């Protein structure tokens, strides 16, 4: 479920970064309010635990295959939603950097999909509701199972939306949903079973660990949380609508500049900017963020595609192929030359 950079567009990536940063800042504030300095090392070690636990393969009964833990729900249960969210974020940062598991631009998407839905939706709305009536193995089973499944379903739906808004694949919305949701239902069941097993065990062996996390959470006010969730969802929708807007508006450059730099000064007023916007109208800075369109609109989007694909006539396409080959050869040649020079230098020094 980790999204790669190649599947997202800058607008979607940026929007999700903003939404995630907002949630993270809010969580940070929440933790600092009841600043128990003990909690930070605990968060660090728990993050490391989930990271390591993802390497344990649990056999899936009846299938002969095995799966592993995701951990968002477990972190929320053990650390509370705020610390859980931040811990999930740091795990994903490390995975992105060391294993390229989910890209850096897509980090916002990944933290949101895997952390927000579990910690801020499934945990308070499902897990806490059920557990509010008191702890029992049955209730832990129901709560952990249901919240893990729903958290993962929401996350998978997030992946679908983000990919579609980015417009990098041809998958029609319906097909993508039909692919993602059932697969993640199965994964969610496994995640729920593993989470249940772990929580039940820990609750039996050291009940204070689980109850403390839930108590610390009880201080949080629900009203602000709802506002925040509304804000985050609005940001996501806004990002989606903006990207539609961007696809119909040819003036993509200024718009994206405004989005990223926060200033609109780059309006095409003087000579250089006029020139730039001329160039830009030829190159269409933003990729087309179109949904896979129904039949009648297909023709139109096909037209757009050919426009931006410069090599429709065979003359330029051959130039493209020759030049592309040359570019790649040149890159390889440059690399080899530099490394040869470096090696020779070293020999001299030795």
């Amino acid at each position, binding site marked *: 479920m980790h999204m790669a950079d*190649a599947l997202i567009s800058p607008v979607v990536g940026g929007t999700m970064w903003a939404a995630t940063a907002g949630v993270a800042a809010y969580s940070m504030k929440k933790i600092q309010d009841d600043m128990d*300095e003990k909690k930070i090392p605990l968060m660090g070690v728990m993050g490391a635990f989930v990271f390591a636990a993802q390497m344990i393969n649990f056999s899936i009964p009846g299938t002969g295959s095995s799966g592993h833990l995701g951990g968002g729900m477990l972190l929320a249960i053990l650390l509370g939603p705020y610390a859980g969210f931040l811990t999930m974020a*740091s795990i994903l940062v490390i995975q992105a950097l060391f294993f390229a598991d989910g890209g850096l631009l897509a980090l916002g998407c990944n933290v949101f999909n895997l952390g927000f839905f579990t910690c801020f939706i499934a945990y308070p709305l499902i897990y806490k509701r059920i557990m509010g009536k008191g702890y029992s193995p049955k209730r832990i089973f129901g709560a952990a199972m249901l919240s893990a499944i729903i958290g993962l379903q929401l996350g998978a739906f997030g992946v679908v939306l983000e990919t579609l808004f980015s417009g990098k694949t041809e998958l029609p919305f319906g097909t993508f949903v039909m692919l993602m949701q059932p697969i993640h239902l199965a994964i969610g069941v496994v995640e729920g*079973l593993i989470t249940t097993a772990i929580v039940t*065990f820990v609750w039996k062996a050291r009940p204070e660990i689980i109850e403390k996390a839930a108590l610390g959470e009880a201080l949080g006010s629900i009203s602000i949380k709802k506002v925040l969730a509304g804000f985050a969802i609005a940001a996501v929708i806004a990002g989606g609508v903006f990207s539609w807007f961007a696809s119909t508006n040819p003036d993509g450059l200024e718009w994206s500049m405004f989005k990223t730099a926060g200033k609109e000064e780059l309006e095409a007023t003087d000579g250089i900017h006029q020139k730039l916007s001329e160039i830009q109208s030829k190159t269409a800075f933003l990729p087309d963020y179109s949904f896979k369109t129904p039949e009648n609109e297909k023709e139109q989007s096909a037209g757009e595609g050919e426009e931006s694909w410069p090599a429709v006539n065979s003359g330029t396409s051959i130039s493209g192929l020759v030049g592309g080959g040359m570019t790649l050869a040149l890159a390889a040649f440059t690399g080899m030359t530099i490394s040869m020079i470096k090696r020779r230098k070293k020999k001299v020094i030795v």
Partner: protein
Amino acid sequence: MSNIMNSLYNMRLLDDLARKETFIHRIHPLVKLLTTVIYLTVVVSFNRYEIIGLFPLIFYPVLVLVLAELPIGPIFRRILLVEPFIIGIGILNPLFDHQVFILGGLTISRGWVTFFSVFLKCGFTVAAALLLIATTGMDSLASALRMLKIPRLFVLQLLLTYRYISVLMEEVARTLRAYSLRAPQQKGVHRSAWGSLAGQIIIRTFERAQRIYQAMCLRGFAGEYNIGDYRKIKASDWAYLAGWVLFFAVARIYNIPVMIGSLLTGVVR
């Protein structure tokens, strides 16, 4: 279990590489972080039908790899390791987009073009992220994050998570080895042991966290992870950033390969 040891080896390798002393390693971490993010944005911003225009951007990973004297094999293998996920989603493109166009006498479906562009972008972005960590290292990157005003709490937490991953992975590996010795020829951990196995590790983790915290307090930990003074960004660092940004911008605006190609084919004709 080999999985865990592999992951440990992976992390250590990238960290070891980050300790080299080359021109690229000496560049300020914040500058490298910014360059990487700009590069990623530029790569991702390309239209899904533009492949050729993307080619010049390969110069960035190639040059960094060579100048930083990193081994090609391990980095390349990591990139290939990630590609299957992208192929999994992208491979459906040819099935859904049958429209064809003719490219130099070849008939190609647009679905394959978009698939290849996603494939290529994945390679570039993954390479950029791996090269960032292999030339910078986690501690320097954390100091760069602090310079960007990312809250102290999060950076501290990130560093602690990172620091204890290897410690805990060794613990998990030991536990799993013990389990597999008692349950030979079994794929994965049996359902009956899910809770007790992972739960035991959690409880040990908790106790370890407490001991670690006490040890930190004894050494005067007061909620601050001291990373020393920030390094100053020098003129050469700015030049590095400016150079790459200029190159990315040119590569983004002009289709360099087509220009080279038309020049060449023009000469031949």
